[in-house]
């Protein structure tokens, strides 16, 4: 993937299977939006703040939405969220939190930190596709946290 490419979606996900399934789902729903995938929290921050391997990236090109898995190696999803939402440059980017469980206490924490929405990654793939297609309204339309 071309690193200098302007992207609409930043997917932060360490599980390659989930990455593949997510990308496939997005594609299936004809969401042709350019997507960039990073594998952990540190890389996500580097990307967003044009640091490290992303130092040459144009900082003005900010993604339209961030899909953020909470369970990440190195810097956790919540930490990433906190930094994004407390930095002037990135705080306005909608963040959709991805989690494996509806019961996850981190969902609450994520809302507190400013997450705009969340999606439970279901076991059933079809269901997952449904969820992802619904998801796109959240960043394309006025974004409000679901109750």
């Amino acid at each position: 993937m071309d690193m200098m490419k302007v992207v609409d979606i930043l997917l932060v996900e360490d599980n390659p299977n989930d990455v593949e399934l997510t990308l496939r789902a997005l594609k299936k729903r004809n969401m042709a939006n350019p997507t960039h995938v990073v594998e952990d929290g540190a890389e996500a921050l580097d990307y967003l703040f044009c640091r490290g391997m992303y130092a040459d990236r144009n900082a003005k090109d900010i993604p339209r939405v961030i899909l953020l898995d909470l369970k990440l190696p190195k810097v956790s999803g919540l930490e990433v969220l906190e930094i994004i939402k407390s930095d002037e440059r990135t705080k306005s980017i909608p963040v959709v939190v991805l989690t494996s469980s509806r019961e996850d206490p981190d969902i609450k924490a994520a809302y507190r930190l400013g997450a705009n929405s969340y999606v439970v990654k279901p076991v059933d793939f079809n269901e997952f596709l449904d969820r992802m297609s619904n998801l796109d309204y959240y960043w394309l339309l006025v974004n409000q946290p679901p109750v």
Partner: protein
Amino acid sequence: MNNASSMPSHGRLDHTILEQLEQFGDALFIHSFDGRIVEVNGRASRSLGYAREELLKMTVMDIEPDFNLHAAQNVWSSTVLGAEITVDGHQCTKQGNVIPVEIRIAPVMHHGQRQYVRIVHDVSRWVEIENQLKERNELNRIIMDNLPAGLAVNSAFPRVEFVYMNDKFPQYYGVTREELKDPDSFWDVVYRDPEFRKTMKAQVLDAIASGDPERMKWTEVPLVTEDGEIRYINAYGTPLPGRNLLLSWVLDVTEQKRAQLELMEAQSLLNQTQHLAKMGGWSYDLEEKRIRWTEEVYRIHGVSPEYDPNEMDSNFEFYLPTDREMLREAFDQAVSLGQPYDLQLRLQRRDGKLIWVRTIGKPMKKNGKILEIQGFIMDISEMKRMTDELTAQTEKLKVLHDIDLVILENIESDELLVTTVLHNLKDLLQPKLIAIATRITDSTGFSVHFTKGKSEDFGNTVVQLKKSIIDAIEKSGLRNTFIPDGFREVSLEIVRQIMPAETQDSVVTIPLIASDALRGLFILRMDHDEPVDGMDMELLQEVFSLLSIALEKIFLNTQIKSYFAELEQKVESRTSMLKAANDELEAFSYSVSHDLRAPLRAISGYTRMLVEDYGNNLDSEGKRICEVISQNAKNMGALIDDLLSFSRIGRNALQPTMVDMRNLAYSVYHELTSTDMRENMILELGELPAATADPTLIKQVWMNLIGNAIKFSSKNPNAKLQVGYGETDDEVIYHIKDNGVGFDMRYVDKLFGVFQRLHSIKEFEGTGVGLAIVQRIIHRHGGRVWAQGAVGEGATFFFSLRKDGIYGYDEGG
């Protein structure tokens, strides 16, 4: 009148006669038969103020208003010529004054004419004297009648006949004048009591017979009036010389007698009062150097009334020497400077008894000169004793109160308690030694606090007592009690450590025992050999009781504290163990929810990809296998979800509110069914009482139960769900009944177990966790859950909730 008869018989009197008439001392008028005045003498004209010529033109009627011509003419006819008559009359002067006169009238013949000679004598002076006499008599009467004495002149031999009596006389005897009129009834009327009458009559007559005025005196003679009232009179008799009469006079002395009686009563009352008040009065007359004491003063001094108080020095001798000087000085100053005094002194009575008196002296002045010292003396021993006692009692109560306070405030420190007690008792008892040994554990070690003699030092030490001694004291049954020289062995053991040099011959030891355990020892050694007095004893007993109770409290408190600390520690270790376990469980749950799902997602997702991308290369069996893989992955996802929610129920705290159960059941039913399903199903939903419960959890209960009912009756074309309730005193029991496949009551125990299923997955899908969740939620609410059913006849599930909304236990809270 001879002169008149010698008058010449012509109209006018000749000169000689006129001259003679002028010599005449009285006024002389000659008038005619018809009353015309024909001649007067100088005196007549002078006395009436008319000139002679004026009078000769007037008639007798002009000057005498009483004159009656007709009567005068009759006189002439009836009287022998030359005879005279005398009448009283009046003459009017020219000035209008009326003069009383005495008129002598003599008819005369003069020159053949009937004439009258009127010799008029001015009697106005006589009249005046007579009036004066009358007035004087009236005055005398008034005086006599108004004298505060009864007066009478009477005989009494033995008839009593009154010549005179004034108004007061019968009044004082309590009788009327009328009653005294009969000379024979005097004695009966005056003296009503026959016996007394007899005595009095004899006495009085005897005295009168003697003629001696000195004997004729009777004082305070009691007379009983008609009303039964007693009056007193003094009666006196004075013989009137030369006549057989007495001047009797009586005085009413009732008031004096009564006053005297009252005075006597008052005096006796005063004496009694003084006696009761133990207060006497005295006075010292400076001029006469005379001292007067009331009865009580004698009594206070313990002397008989024969004692002569006039020796001031011997009076002072009664007082104790120092007090005597004080009194002497005060008395001297009262006499010389007029300073009053008020002293409380000790007086030794004649009988040797020492009393406290309050003596007050007050100089009485007249014209700036001190004439007399007046004063009171009171026996205040009793008062003083009571006051002293009260003061002592108050002091002691204060000590007790202080100790009480310490005990109330310090149930933790025996040291503070004991030192406070020592401080208080030291001031009160002034002992040689007080030591209090205490133990607030069950060991044999006693900590001893003590104070010695007059020093302000307080010390402490520790002693070990033999277990056998402690046992002996505990078994002795003696507690908080003074036993002279009791427990000597123990005392010696302790005192030896504190005062090694002393002999411990008279040390008292009091064991302080509470709940049969020796909590302390109180050791006292007094500086003097006198035993502790009753008051102090009482106080000490009280202190011992308080002390033992307080020590017991401290002991118990200490024990409780140690138990508590132990318990605290246990709770803490258990809690941390639980916490560790819980944390592990948390981690496990997290792992389950995330880590188990990821591979499932992969299995499901990739299978899907396989079917989508390579489905054309698969035969129908290959596709079926892919379907089975997907289905199983999905089932496992559901299992994981249920397990997580099951474990979550125990972890979160309940948040109970009022829940409308009917509404909830109704909405859950609609949530779980589609319109199509509802067309083939009947819901009978009756009234349901509201419940106090966690709304999220109780909704889960309805979800699971209604879900089950729908699921297990789905094969019945006439499926019917009935939701209702029943109640006991303290519970509401909700139930849901279906007409589905039911269950075998033999397996009812397995219904609510985790992963327990009575039907195959093929028959009815499910994880076997739903009812376990229901049970867990209901149990957390303090309720019960149970079921009834039969194969093919449907099932009924019951759950109860407490009406008071109080939960039996709360795992998560």
